[in-house]
């Protein structure tokens, strides 16, 4: 896909996120929107995954460590044919498998997540398994910045570097807000780049809402051998819906009809603008 097509696709997924949060009246909308461009780049350009061959042992693996931001992931899985689009309407409804966190009952989901700080270890296990079985699939894991507080993340970081997991691509959605407020006020994380480098990762710092930068980062990281890699993606929480952008209160919330209309209009406007740019 071209950069423009990917941007349009990301916009489509943004509308899907808004739809789900409107249906269910709940959802971790802010983080779903901040990570939307990254997930779109992964599923439509970077990763080798195919709903027709969902069990292919050589498929690339994806783990959403910040599992609460599942809304974008579900929309992508539906768009890619892993699940029916119709099923999205059951999001968070009684008896559904489309709960508010990824789980393996959903085709295309590799691991149940939800509790924070688990995804990197799981991704390390998948990457190490590839090396042990001489397979050349890659493992992609999207982490939140709030979850960097979990000690288990840093255990996994040591493991990844120790075993030179260069088939592991970690993406840190650095939107700078967690449920109680700015990450640096809740528990200081900086200097994050230096921390990850000290743990043995090759770190690429980018604007995580810029499709061109995201794709270029993956292209560059491809060439790095013998080290795990991390994209430190500077993002905007709530990206694409102006009243949500950089607002702590939109970490989690539902949309009433009025706000839904406002958000949808804004996304539609962005889509139109992209056609003329």
């Amino acid at each position: 896909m071209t950069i423009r097509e990917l941007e349009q696709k990301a916009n489509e997924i943004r509308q899907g996120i808004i739809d789900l949060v409107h249906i269910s009246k709940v959802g971790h909308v802010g983080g779903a929107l901040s990570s939307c461009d990254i997930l779109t780049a992964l599923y439509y350009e970077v990763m080798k995954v195919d709903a027709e061959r969902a069990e292919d042992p050589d498929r690339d693996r994806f783990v959403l460590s910040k599992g609460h931001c599942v809304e974008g992931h579900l929309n992508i899985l539906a768009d890619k044919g892993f699940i029916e689009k119709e099923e999205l309407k059951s999001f968070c409804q009684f008896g559904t498998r489309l709960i508010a966190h990824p789980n393996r009952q959903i085709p295309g989901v590799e691991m149940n997540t939800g509790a924070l700080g688990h995804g990197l270890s799981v991704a390390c296990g998948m990457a190490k398994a590839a090396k042990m079985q001489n397979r050349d699939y890659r493992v992609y894991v999207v982490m939140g910045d709030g979850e960097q507080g979990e000690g288990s993340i840093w255990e996994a970081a040591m493991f990844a570097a120790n075993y030179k997991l260069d088939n592991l691509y970690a993406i840190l959605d650095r939107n700078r807000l967690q449920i109680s407020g700015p990450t640096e006020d809740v528990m200081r994380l900086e200097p994050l780049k230096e921390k990850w480098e000290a743990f043995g990762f090759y770190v690429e710092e980018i604007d995580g809402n810029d499709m061109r930068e995201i794709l270029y980062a993956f292209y560059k990281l491809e060439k790095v051998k013998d080290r795990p890699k991390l994209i430190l993606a500077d993002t905007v929480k709530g990206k694409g819906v102006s009243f949500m952008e950089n607002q702590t209160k939109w970490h989690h919330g539902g949309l009433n009809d009025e706000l839904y209309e406002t958000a949808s209009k804004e996304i539609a406007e962005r889509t139109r603008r992209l056609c003329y740019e």
Partner: protein
Amino acid sequence: MSKTACRKALTKTLLEIAEKSKKIVVLTSDARGSVTLNDFAAALPEQFVEVGIAEQDEIGVAAGMAACGLIPFVCAPAPFLSARSLEQIKVDVSYSNTNVKICGVSGGLSYGALGGSHHSIHDLAAVRPMENMTVLMPADAAQTGWMVKTIAETEGPVYMRMGRNGVEDIYTEEDVSCFEIGKAHLLREGRDITLIAAGEMVWYAKCAAEMLQEENISARVLDMHTIKPLDIGALRAAAEETGYLVTIEEHSVCGGLGSAVAEYICQNCPVPVKILGIPDEHVIAGDSPEVFAHYGLDGGGIAKTVRELLNKQHMEEKK
């Protein structure tokens, strides 16, 4: 009869099956000495993964490996696996239903004198309510070997807890053919009372039954090697045929084998159940045999409890 530590049977069997299948991998957290994994690590370095002292990562990594088709055996001390990495066991193994075999060694009071940090008398209570989880406790080396082979061939999460010290051989290699996961093994027939034990306590239950026999008390002994799923058929038969159950476990009296048995019995075929285990208090220090004796969990202690229970019952019937 000789003594062998279950952990040695674990590692010997792992080496045997891993030589035949590259899918079998072993993970440990700086515990290759205490688990006795040095031979495995030397013989099959490519199927051995050292994680360092990082139990949370260890379980997560194992779950990721299982999701990619490997059969990981996580071998490390039970006190740390079942506490430090409990959320990973809950989310990455049980809830995700990954094919991870968690082998907690030096469980219970194996590290008696090292204190509460090194005891795991909470682990059955912690893992028993977890979905998809099979919970096992081998009684001796032969049973351990059988268990390892069986769980390697069966898809699904397992928590298998064993001790550190040498235990008396109860079974021969031939006996294992009659074992089945989820089925209690009838070690000794009896009609007056049933002793239900698991793990190292099976030996003490057997000793108690032999002592009681000399006093004409006929005690049935069930080796409940599978704590979950529980063999309710054997429990019902024991309740109906012997009328009194005594459970014996190297675990807190809260939430372990005794609780599991009581949960079924009180709702389905109520008979008196006595739960023998570690009381809900600060655990006394000492070698595990000393501590077992202190809490009445050795052969003599169990026999004494049974005598008292039956006498009391007899007195009540007379009234």
